[in-house]
Structure formats: C-alpha cells, structure tokens
C-alpha cells in the first residue's frame, strides 16, 4: 500500500501560525479538560517512541484463517464511533484504492482473498474470504484459493468465485487507473492494457479460472511466490457484478464486510451501519464492535489535535485514521500524561531517503563518502525531532517489512552528525578530493535549512556542493527524467505489501530504469538484479525475507541512497474508546478492534 504523500509536504501553512499562538491558551486557560493530570515539564515521559516493528510477520495457517477475530479483552459491542480526518477517501472502489487511508476505510466494508490478522503472536497473513492463504504447487505460478462457507454480500446474496473473477476482470477497464497493477500485469503477456479490455464488452479473462462456486485459480505468466501478500491489498478487493456501477461505484461500494455505507457526501461525511449479512464466524480479521461509524472530513491536524485534547462531547468517542498530532503541538501532548494514555505511536511502512544518482556519481567511494559525511541527527532536529519525523534509518527496508535485519554499514548511529574525516579518506581513495555534487531540493522553509546543514557537512568533507532549489509542485517531474542533472535528491517509498519484492525491487532493479520510474537512484548492478530475481523465486516467506535482507545490504554497500527515516506515526483518540491500535501495515490507526467504552 502507498502512504499518502501529504504528510511529507507541508500542511496548509496559513493555519499554522494561529494554531501555534493558541497552543498556550487552550492548555493553560480555564482549566479545561485538556489540562488535567500532571502535565508539568518535569513529569514529561521522555521514553523514545516504541519501535512497533512487524518483522515478526508470518504466514498463518488455515486455522488462523477461521473467524471470529481475536477478541479484545474488555471490549463490548454497540455504539457509534466518530472518525475525524483531514481528507475524504479519494477512492472507495477497491480497484482504485492504493493510498493507505483509503485502504483503512475500505477494511470496514471491502474484503479480499487474504488479509492481516493481529493477535498476541504478532501479525499473520491469513485467508480473509479464502479459507487459507492460498496454495501453489509450481513455485508460485499457479495459485488456488477456496472461498469460505457463509460469505454474503450486504444484500444477502452469496459471494462466489465468479465474483472474484469478475473483480479481477474489471481491473482492466479503462477507467481503472489509480490502483495497483501487479496482478493485471502478472496474469497476461505483454502490456496488460492491450491484452484485455475488461469485462464490460462481454469478454472474459481466461487466466482466472473458477472450476466451481468456491474455487478460484490464478494462472500467472511467471512465478510470484508472494501473490498471497499481493492479494491482501485493498486494490484486489471483491466487487459484485450485479452491483457494479462502474465509475460511480467509487462513491458507494457494495459491502462484503461488517458495515455497509448509509451515505457518503464527498469531502464531508461517510456514515456506516452494521451489515446484517456479515457473519463474524467467517472473518478472522475484523472484530467490528461498534454498531455505527460516523466519519467527518475537512478537519485539519490542528483542529483534530485540539479536539482530542479537549475530549468533550461526541469527540470522546472519536478517533482518526490518518491525522497525526499537529507538529507544533507534539511537545505539549508528550507532556500531557492524560492525553498520552490515549495516544498511538508506531512505525509506518514509509521510508524516506536521499537518492544518490548513480548515473552521475559513478564512483561508489564518492557515494559512500556522502553517506559518511551525512549530518543525519542535525537534519532530524531541524525537521522537529524523532516524533515529527521518524527513526533514523540505516537500511533500505523498513522494520515493518518481513525479513528486515538491522545493520549500519556506515556507522551512522555511532556518529549521527557525520564523520567528515572518514569521508575525506574515502574521497582520497577515490582520487577525487573535491568532487562537485548538485543537491536538488523542494524549496520550502524547512528544506532551505536542511540544505544549509547538508551543504555545511559535505563541504567539511571536501565536497563542492551546488544547491538547486526546485518548485515543490513539480519536484517529481524535475527529478523524473533518467538524464536529470542532479546528484542528490530526496525520495520516499512504502512497500505495497510487507515483503522485499515491493520494498526493494521497484527502487533498485536496474532493468526498470525509465523516465519517471521509481528507480530514482538509477542503480543498475547486475549482481543485485540477479539477487532480486533469486529472492523473488523463494516460496518460503521466511527464507525469502532473509534473501531480501541480503539484497538490502548489497544495495547499501553500493550507497545508492542515504537512508533518512523509518517514518513514525503519532496520533490521538478520544477517552471514550478502547481497542484503538496502530496498524503497521497501513501506518495509521486501525478501526478493526475499536469499541465504545
């Protein structure tokens, strides 16, 4: 899944100043609810953010795939949960869902063949509509899934294998352009757009077979041992043929999950009520305690932080999926013991890094020297510290990816402000004591400061730094071309599912280099390309994880990027809710185990 890019870009700047000014008032004045508890500076809990890594992620068994979901102690059903967030869900048609906050909402009414079950023993990939995580006998080229008994759409009609086939077929329709494209590509030869035009003109897709009402067979062109992870994406959720309204389906999808949509007013509200035809016994993932959901959009982070701190009225039973604590209120929240009890922290799948353009910086020693000289800690402080950014990263893969191994090839954590002497030594070895590097950056106030720090640090190591400001609106268009004229530029990525194949391959497979493609560092090392292919063939998830960790190390040896952060999430919810959890797969608050106290 993709994490929305909006958190990386500055929020509406016009509002920031006022909210800052207000910070003191709301807390100190009037003895409002937010001021309760010991919130003095001395009592501030200073523990670092928990690293809720999911490297314990495993593939579950058929037993794990049976419902109901693992109950939350003390939880009770009923009530209405309010959800406040900045943006409406841009897409709800599963085929068009890619962004994480769309996926989070969809989990309440859209089910896929597979999904992630959370329990005491970590996160497991389990069958959601399917009885298990699928079976393959030929290394991942042919996959068979069997549907559970008792699955129904919101109108009571059964969910059949034909529905699953249809859901895949409509992914090829011309108006479906926003979602993931893995499955479409894997099922056909060549360009999938040309191979099949979708089901609307009566044509069907032979690569998906339905021998009976319960069985779906996928015939892939090449082996993909982690297809069962791929199918857990909301993008591969089920859509019933009888209810397909094509373009309009996006506003009001038909439910296979615990809730159905009552009304959806774009950019304003989304109301859900219990789907009477959802049977918890078929669902290992969703507890779905509340009777109803009321979601309200257009609430800026400043406003939601304010409301969670005030914790009054209907906001007591409110949560947010995506809104984080407003950056300027973070310190205040950290110092508020009562609010901290209702806070959510965790590592998201989102990683950020600085691409080193290997097409221009051809000498690996020079790239390593940049990594060595990098003032990581200083940059983190400029951006607001760990809570506002994330943990300093030293690898390509995030701790949220299956197989993640922590390593720190360049001693960044030991010398977080850079090691100019070591960098100088590397440059000397390279025979280029004073190379010129062009650093391209988004021209925002924070980025200006960061650029100064980077320039200082690299200059100390002997680099001659040319800073090139870019318009934030067209940043990606500027760095997109393969022959761009920059050496260092920022980037971010989130794995579409928590394995190395989406965490690593799109960024570092040298055969995928193209204008505007995601391999922005243009790394093309045959050894790495081969290692990627090899890892992709491993059917055992744990073994594959190890292989990907090895690829990760190889890439870091090449110094194709300077890792920046494993991004963290820090959010609040109302005191009237229990079971609010962090979802490391989506990197935001999870709605699945929430209950009204």
């Amino acid at each position: 899944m993709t994490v929305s890019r909006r958190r990386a870009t500055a929020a509406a700047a016009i509002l920031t100043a006022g909210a800052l000014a207000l910070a003191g008032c709301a807390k100190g004045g009037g003895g409002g609810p937010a001021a309760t508890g010991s919130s003095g500076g001395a009592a501030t809990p200073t523990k670092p953010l928990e690293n809720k890594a999911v490297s314990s992620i495993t593939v579950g068994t058929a037993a794990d795939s049976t419902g109901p979901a693992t109950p939350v102690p003390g939880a009770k059903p009923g009530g209405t949960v309010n959800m406040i967030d900045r943006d409406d869900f841009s897409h709800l048609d599963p085929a068009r869902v890619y962004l994480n906050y769309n996926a989070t909402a969809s989990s309440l009414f859209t089910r896929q063949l597979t999904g992630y079950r959370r329990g005491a023993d970590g996160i497991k990939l389990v069958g959601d509509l399917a009885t298990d995580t699928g079976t393959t006998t030929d290394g991942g080229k042919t996959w068979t899934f069997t549907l559970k008994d008792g699955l129904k759409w919101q109108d009571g009609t059964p969910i059949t294998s034909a529905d699953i086939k249809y859901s895949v077929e409509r992914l090829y329709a011309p108006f479906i352009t926003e979602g993931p494209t893995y499955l479409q590509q894997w099922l056909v030869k060549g360009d999938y757009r040309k191979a099949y035009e979708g089901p609307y003109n009566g044509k069907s897709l032979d690569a998906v077979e339905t021998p009976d009402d319960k069985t779906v067979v996928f015939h892939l062109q090449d082996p993909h041992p982690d297809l069962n992870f791929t199918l857990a994406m909301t993008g591969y959720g089920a859509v019933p043929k009888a209810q397909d309204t094509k373009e309009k389906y996006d506003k009001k999808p038909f439910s296979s999950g615990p809730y159905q949509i009552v009304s959806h007013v774009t950019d304003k509200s989304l109301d859900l009520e219990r789907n009477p035809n959802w049977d918890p016994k078929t669902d290992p993932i969703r507890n779905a305690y509340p009777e109803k959901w009321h979601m309200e959009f257009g609430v800026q982070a400043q406003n939601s932080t304010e409301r969670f701190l005030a914790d009054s009225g209907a906001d007591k039973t409110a949560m947010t999926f995506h809104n984080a604590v407003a950056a300027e209120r973070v310190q205040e929240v950290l110092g508020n013991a009562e609010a901290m009890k209702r806070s959510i922290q965790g590592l998201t799948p989102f990683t950020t890094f600085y691409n080193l353009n290997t097409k221009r910086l051809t000498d690996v020693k020079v790239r390593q020297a940049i990594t060595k000289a990098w003032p990581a800690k200083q940059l983190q402080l400029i951006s607001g510290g760990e809570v506002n950014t994330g943990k300093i990263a030293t690898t390509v893969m995030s701790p949220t990816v299956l197989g993640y191994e922590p390593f720190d090839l360049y001693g960044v954590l030991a010398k977080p402000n850079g090691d100019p002497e070591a960098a100088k030594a590397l440059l000397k070895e390279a025979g280029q004591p004073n190379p010129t590097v062009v650093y391209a950056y988004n021209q925002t106030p924070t980025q200006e400061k960061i650029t100064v720090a980077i320039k200082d640090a690299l200059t100390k190591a002997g680099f001659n730094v040319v800073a090139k400001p870019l318009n934030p609106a067209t940043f990606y268009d500027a760095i997109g071309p393969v022959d761009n004229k920059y050496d260092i530029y920022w980037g971010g990525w989130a794995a579409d599912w928590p394995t190395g194949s989406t965490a690593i391959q799109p960024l570092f497979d040298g055969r995928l280099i193209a204008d505007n493609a995601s391999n922005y560092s243009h790394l093309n090392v045959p050894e790495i390309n081969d290692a990627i292919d090899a890892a992709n063939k491993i059917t055992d998830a744990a073994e594959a994880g190890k292989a990907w960790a090895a690829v990760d190390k190889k890439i870091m040896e090449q110094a194709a990027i300077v890792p920046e952060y494993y991004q963290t999430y820090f959010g609040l919810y109302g005191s009237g809710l229990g079971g609010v959890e962090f979802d490391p797969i989506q990197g935001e608050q999870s709605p699945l185990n929430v209950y009204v106290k």
Partner: protein
Amino acid sequence: MFRFIVRRLIGAAVIMLIISAVTFFLFYAIPRDPARAFCGKICSPTNLELIRHNLGMDDPLFVQYWHWLTGIFTGRDLVQFGACAAPCLGYSFATQEPVFAAILDRFPVTVSVTIGAAVVILSFGIITGMIAAWQQGKPLDKIASTSSVIGASLQIYFVGPLVVFFVVDSMGLLPRPSYIPFTENPAGWFVHLLIPWVVLSIIFTANYTRMTRSVMVEQLAEDYVRTARAKGMSGRTVFLRFAWRGAMIPIVTIFGVDLATLLGGTIITEQTFTLHGIGELAVRAVQNTDLPMLLGVTLVGAFAIVILNIVVDLLYAVIDPRVRLG
C-alpha cells in the same frame, strides 16, 4: 435600467470567459502533469497515456478549452468519469465528483456563513460606527474606536479555536460549528453557525465601525446636513435621514467587495471551523492541482464579484438620484 442590466450581464459573461481562459491556460503553464494523479504508484507509460486520453488531455490545449466551454452548455461524456450533464464544468481530478454539483452543494454553506456574518457585520459595524460618530470625541467614541482597532488586528484562526474551546468545549453553551441546511432545521442552522458568524464579524465589524464613523463625520459636516438642521429637523432625523443617506455610498461600495470576497470562499473561516464551503474546495483544488475544480471555484468567485458589482451599481442609483444608469 433594463438595458443597463442586460449590457452589464453581457459584460460579465465576457469577463468570466476571459477569466476562465486565463486560468485554463495558466494552469498548463505549470510544468506538472495532472494525469499522474490518476496513475498508480508504479505508473507505466501506457497507463499514463490512457489516462491522458480518458481526460481528453491528448487534444491540443485550445481544443480542450473549447470542449470544457461547450460542456457548460451541452454537457460532455468523459471516459474517466462517465456522462456529465449540462451545465458541465467537468469532474474534479481529485475527488472525481462533478464540479458543478460540488459547487452547488457547497454554495449554501458559504452563502449561509456569508449572509449571517454580513448581517452581524453590518448591524454591529454600522451601529457602533454611528454611535461613535454621534458621540464624536466622547468616551463612547473612544471605546468604539479602540475596540475596533483591537478587533481588526485579531485573526480568525486565533479567535476561532479560542471561542470554540471556551463556548463549546468548556462551557458547552453552543454546539460545535457545522452546517445544517436551513430548509431542514432553521434553528439548528442558526445555532451551529453562530460562532463562525460572530468570529468572522469580530474582524470585519471593526472595519465597518471605523468606516461608518469616518464617513458619518464627513457627512455631518456637509452643507446639506447643516441645511437640514437649519430647517429645524431633529438631531435624529438629521443623523439618520440626511447624513446616513450620504454615508451609505462608500459603505455599500466596500460591502459589495467584501461580500464578493466572502462568497468566493471564506477559506480561513471554513478551515478553522471545519465547514465545507467554497473556500475549502478552492484550497483543495490548488493543493491537488485540480484544474476543473480550480476553474469552477475561480468562476464562482468571479461570478460573485461581477454580479455584486452590478448590484452595487444598481444600489448607487437607488441611493443617489444623481447616478444615471446608462
């Protein structure tokens, strides 16, 4: 009068046409490809091309503009979104809803905020300004003038959350601001919008207090006002019938401009109180490089301005018989 209105309306249409064209072509001056917003994370060139075709972006610019323009009168059919009935302003790139429907849906919010605030602003601003002018140099005048300076220097995003915190969260006197259609529940409409109105008024009222005071003081020094007093007209009559009549012209002028600005979207107010009006649409359209929405809200803003200009001109003629419409 009729000919004046017809002529001005034709002029307004021309202005709107120019504004839409300028916005349209300026948008394409930004080196950014809106089609990429519809392309997944791993965006293949075929996919991108398909989207461009779906959005009609593979046509030359002026053809695209022509399609957009004719769509307003005849409707269009867009692959990415389906049919779009006239008046079709296209579909939002970001939310994929019809622009016209989105604007129509949000206009009542902005209108409600605007109208309510306008009533408060006008009544309070003018009354305090009148009192200040009446009590020129006396304590009441000084209080009114000082508080108007304070009011004018306050900001919505500062006062707004503060008022919400005390009135809604702490004391629970009023519900959290939101929009409830007037037609559904007039009382609810009123109490839910009261805070935005009052907060918005605090800032604007100050301007009107100061302006009313200064134009009234000016008018009171006019010869014809002296004549009225020399005729034995009572102080109140002189103040309200004579001086006020002359003071209305500058006030109507400024108010017309302010009203148009408010109707074009009370961006900060809407964001502060989480109201879903035109302003919010405008901000999102800019953030998302959402051309159809951008064009739509720009046109709404322009429309409000040109229409209110005509109304202001008509009002001039009503207030001042010397003004000829022609």
